[in-house]
């Protein structure tokens, strides 16, 4: 599980838009039509490779229910990327985007990469929100846009990985200070093992994402 970077993602959006399904599709490559309501936050993780570097995506899948709103807000902090999800078959989920966006911008760092996702693209017949509308919203608010289907897995990988690429670019540009964990980026434990012969037979590298040593 050695990785160069760890990116913290949050998935936000109205309840029932398919946030947990997107995560499950991305981490387990499977689709579960019936999903328990998420309580607070659930986690998922997957390793990806960008520019030859192993990057661990640690995804915080938040509850969409209004009741958990105040709790989930406290999890925004320290996220490097956010997937803002709406359901193309439910216009109200699209209409709530502004609120979600305001929330996200208010409670996270300004450099957070936000990807707008119109999920359930497989349900074309029940579509209520045109793709162009999503595109326009994204353009207006400076987001990256993509329509996905957690069911068919269409664009799911791309959504997560493109977000990671943007974050990675920001790191390269020096926008993100990787040493400040409030940015949602941690340097992997492999850096500490690079030492080589030091600490023979020791306990190995320090805590992975624990921050600091041991």
């Amino acid at each position, binding site marked *: 599980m050695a990785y160069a970077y760890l990116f913290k993602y949050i998935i936000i959006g109205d309840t029932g838009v398919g946030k947990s399904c997107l995560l499950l599709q991305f981490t387990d490559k499977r689709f579960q039509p019936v999903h328990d309501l998420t309580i607070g936050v659930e986690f998922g993780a997957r390793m990806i490779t960008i520019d030859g570097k192993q990057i661990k995506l640690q995804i915080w899948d938040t509850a969409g229910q209004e*009741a958990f709103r105040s*709790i989930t807000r406290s*999890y925004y902090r320290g996220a490097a990327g956010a997937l803002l999800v709406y359901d193309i078959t439910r216009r109200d989920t699209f209409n709530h985007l502004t609120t979600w966006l305001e929330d996200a911008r208010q409670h996270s760092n300004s450099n957070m990469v936000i990807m707008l996702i119109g999920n359930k693209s497989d349900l074309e017949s029940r579509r209520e929100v045109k793709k162009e509308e999503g595109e326009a919203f994204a353009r207006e608010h400076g987001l990256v846009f993509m329509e996905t289907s957690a069911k068919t897995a269409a664009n799911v990988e791309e959504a997560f990985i493109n977000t990671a690429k943007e974050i990675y670019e920001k790191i390269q540009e020096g926008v993100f200070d990787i040493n400040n964990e409030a940015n949602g980026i941690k340097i992997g*434990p492999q850096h500490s093992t690079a030492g080589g*012969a030091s600490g*023979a*037979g020791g*306990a190995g590298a320090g805590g992975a*994402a624990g921050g600091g040593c041991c």
Partner: protein
Amino acid sequence: MATSDSEDFESADEGHGSPDKKQRKKRLSSSNYSDNALETEQKVSNTPKESSNVKHVEDKVKETDGWDDFEIDDNEAEPAPVKSNAEKQNKIEDKPSNVKESKKSQDTGWDDFDDWGEDDTSTNVQKPEPKPVQAKPQPAQSQKPEPNIQEVTDRLAAASTGGGGWGWGWSVDSLLSSATAGISTITSQVSQGISTVLETGIGAPDPEELARRSVKTNETKTDRSAPAPEADKRPETGSEQEASAGDAAFPFGSLLSGVTKFVETTGTKVIHGGLDTLETIGKKTMEVLQDGDPGLAKKRAMLGLGAGDKPVLSQVLREAKAKAEEEDKVREEKREAKEVHYENLFDDFEGLVHLEALEMLSRQVSMRIEERIRSVDLEKRQDIKETLQQVAELCEMPEEDDDYEESPSEDLSKPDAFHERLQTATQDLGLKLQFQALVKQYTEVLTYLSSPEADSVKSVYKRGVSSLAQGTALSVEQYHKAAEMLLVKTRRSTADEADALTQMTVVLTKHISELATLFTEKLNALPSDNKEQVNTYITNIFLEAGNSSTYIQNAFQLALPILQIGAV
């Protein structure tokens, strides 16, 4: 002719690699007079009287010549492309060397020549640094007998007064006239001159061009007559050329010679001074280095330069191989150690991230409590603080009392009994916590330990650490979930919640020790020829079990503000 010219250029270039034209010029002329310079330097100390005379001359010349010569310099810069001439003048530059030879017999010629050099040096260099200039050129004069100098002085004086603003013109005019006069005699002696030119090897293109230009400008300015005798002599001494311009270059070179001499002597002094300084620095450095370490023995030894410990190649290679093997071994051990590294496993089981999330909640809620305290008046503030304290006390872990461990019904399996205990403990919490994962994990552990899979000490140990990490991660998740659910709970009963969570903590920590005991018992039961290793493993298991309990209790403490906020 042509070939000799080119050779001259080359040699000149070799001698004076500087790309700077003017510098070259100076050096060139200086090389012409290098002998002179040496001689004169030696004589300087012997001729104080003469130098005073010379000063007279200089002073006079300064008045008039100073700026004029600079004008000439300016003129040099003007473009005057006459290449063929330039080549010829090249030779003329060499004249001085010949002049040297002939100077003993021809005093007058030498005097004039020298005077010019003197004029220029004094004037040219004077501007930036008057004093040294006066001192340096003196040597050149000192070579000559006093009467000659007097003569020159007189002449110069006359020229400066007679010439008025054009005083400089005198010297230049004389050059010109001498040049023209020389032409007639030049041709006959051309062959003679060539050899000298070749020998001296001076004839860089730059100086001659410089000379040519100066002559050209002079020509345009004046055509006055000048002392002919001097001119007559020059052709004889120098390597002569047909062109009058070429002749004119000769004196010009001499002008520069004085400057160069000055530059040279100053330069020599500077260099000597610099070398002295360097030497001092070097000596001092050695002194410091050897301070308390005579012969640098210690430092040599430190740097591994000692003669005694010279490495033998085969030895080095052997050592390198051994080292590489050792490193491989270490790396392998490390990899294995990592495999059973508790923290990593705990992270892999999402224990850390749940702890992190719980911490975020805890911090946020704490802030809300503080806010609330601040928002009320002092009296209420005290009440709130007391309430908070009471809740905290409720959450203190009870003393180890085994009477709690009411033996579960005999007909229940261990995991089911565990589940029941958890549910009983959290009954009053009013939340639907999901303990299935914990129960499932417990079941899996039990299954594993009774299976033939658990046959080696190592694999049992690995599984033990892993199980502890997983059990702890799942436990931490319970606190996280409980906290989240408590926060969205509409009706709070803090005392019950606190009690329930405390009970849950007791059950969970007991569960962890149960897991540890199961694994250590298994380790003890397994046949092993390395008891020491087994003991190490057992110690580690208990160590990680303690670690697990700490995590669980930390999680419980993080949940405390969430309990507290329900009461205030």
